[in-house]
């Protein structure tokens, strides 16, 4: 079970501030979508509309073709996991997991128990006594075990250490293979999570900049590696995103697709061509927007 998302000309205003400006986008069912944007880009606003936490000022938000706001059948399909403030939450971990199990029709208790163990979560501890990373891990457990057809993780990893984040990514991919659904992963840890994405959405300052399959995005640039002299000569006319040098070897990220002629030339200059990182593309695209 997986649900698609569609936004048609969605605008969201908070008094005079426009958090989202005329956003139109479709997220295909059954894929893992990476939602990338800088701080304040409008990621959480966008996600809270998809989760029906609020209504858009204009436009429509559809889940599987029907408006999601106050639509019980559609709202039930959406799980929105975000960095929640648990300062006042005195309930135990176990209790909060139970609430999800009670309401979520596809909740898998066995899977939840497995994840609780994997994250070494103390189930009998009050949630407000847990570390930030542990609270995030609990959110991840609830989000994954709920198996909602549309599962949204909005920077759900905050505070989690690297091994815990690794568990999160692995469990997500494993479960996606067995129980495919639609994921939206909002993040700014782009370099760490890019391998998870089937599809990439980049927003900046409330507008949609890019909505493409991951392969298409990564082919929008290239990394050129070789002797510094040759690399510089080859990339002199190109848009450089990033460069690194170690001794005489240089690696430059360039923006734009390389044509066959350029590839032949690179080959003759003994240069290696690799994919560009999503992180570099993201930085480039959003910086350009600011300028």
């Amino acid at each position, binding site marked *: 079970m997986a649900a698609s998302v569609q936004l048609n000309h969605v605008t969201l205003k908070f008094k005079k501030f426009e958090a989202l400006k005329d956003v139109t986008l479709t997220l295909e069912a059954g894929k893992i979508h990476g939602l990338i944007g800088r701080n304040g880009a409008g990621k959480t606003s966008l996600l*809270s509309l998809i989760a029906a*936490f609020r209504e858009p000022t204009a436009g429509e938000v559809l889940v599987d073709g029907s408006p999601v706001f*106050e639509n*019980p059948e559609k709202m039930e399909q959406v*799980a*929105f996991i975000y960095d929640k403030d648990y300062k006042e939450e005195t309930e135990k971990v176990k209790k909060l997991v139970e*609430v999800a199990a*009670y*309401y979520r029709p596809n909740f898998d208790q066995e899977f939840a128990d497995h994840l609780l163990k994997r994250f070494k979560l103390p189930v009998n501890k009050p949630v407000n006594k847990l570390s930030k990373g542990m609270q995030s891990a609990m959110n991840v457990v609830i989000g994954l075990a709920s198996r909602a057809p549309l599962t949204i993780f909005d920077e759900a990893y905050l505070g989690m250490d690297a091994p815990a984040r690794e568990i999160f990514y692995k469990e997500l991919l494993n479960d996606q293979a067995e129980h495919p659904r639609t994921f939206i992963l909002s993040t700014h840890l782009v370099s760490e999570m890019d391998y998870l994405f089937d599809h990439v959405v980049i927003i900046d300052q409330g507008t949609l900049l890019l909505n493409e399959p991951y392969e298409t995005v990564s082919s929008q640039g290239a990394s050129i590696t070789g002797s510094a002299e040759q690399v510089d000569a080859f990339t002199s006319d190109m848009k450089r995103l990033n460069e690194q040098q170690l001794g005489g070897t240089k690696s430059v990220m360039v923006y734009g697709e390389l044509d066959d002629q350029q590839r032949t030339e690179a080959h003759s200059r003994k240069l290696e061509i690799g994919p560009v990182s999503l992180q570099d593309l993201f930085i480039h695209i959003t910086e350009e927007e600011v300028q």
Partner: protein
Amino acid sequence: MKSERQSKVAAHVFYQQFKWSLWFFSILFVIHLARIFFLNSGVEAVDGFFIFAYQPVNVFMLVCGIMIVYVFMGQHIHQGISRKEWYKGTALSAIGLALIITLVTLLINGIQYVLQQFVSLPVALDNAIAFGTFEGALASIAGFYFNALTFYMIGWMIGIGYYRFGWVIGFGFVALALVGFSLNDFFWEGNAYSTLLASWVPQFTPNTSFVVAITGSILLIAALFVFMVSMTKRVTIKM
């Protein structure tokens, strides 16, 4: 499916608040015993549990009503429950909670009555209302129930006012609550003159009829239910 989800909300909210009420009744009962055994003048009869519990129960229901919005609304809507389903479930649980609380009060009152037959208490108990004439008892029980429900609904109204509009406008909901209390007082105690309504409607005559009380009370509760639909329908859920 739809009704299943709202029943789930009703059951969950009811069960949680019933647990709160057990704490509440335990404390109230201890205080009641202290009144009987230690805090009595030895001369005047002490109110029986039913009469004693009347005001505290109302306060408890008010607090429950305020808290449901903050404790459960976001939590349940986060789990994919629609606002409407949450409203319906919570409304059902409110009706049930007021009922169970009335019954628990009566039960404790009954236990107290039975105990009284076997144990000699240091002071007389006034059990008149609950165990007086049939008509009087029924009227008191109905009054107890409708008051509990009204206080809960008014609490809910204050809760959603603060949740939705923040502190400043929230105070407006407190003012609205005072109007609700005054109306309720007028229906059940005929003393609206001492409260807010007096300054607005000087010609109000205190009510003494049970039929007027019950009709007015039901209308007030109905109005509160309708108001809560409109307050909950499109509320933005806090994150």
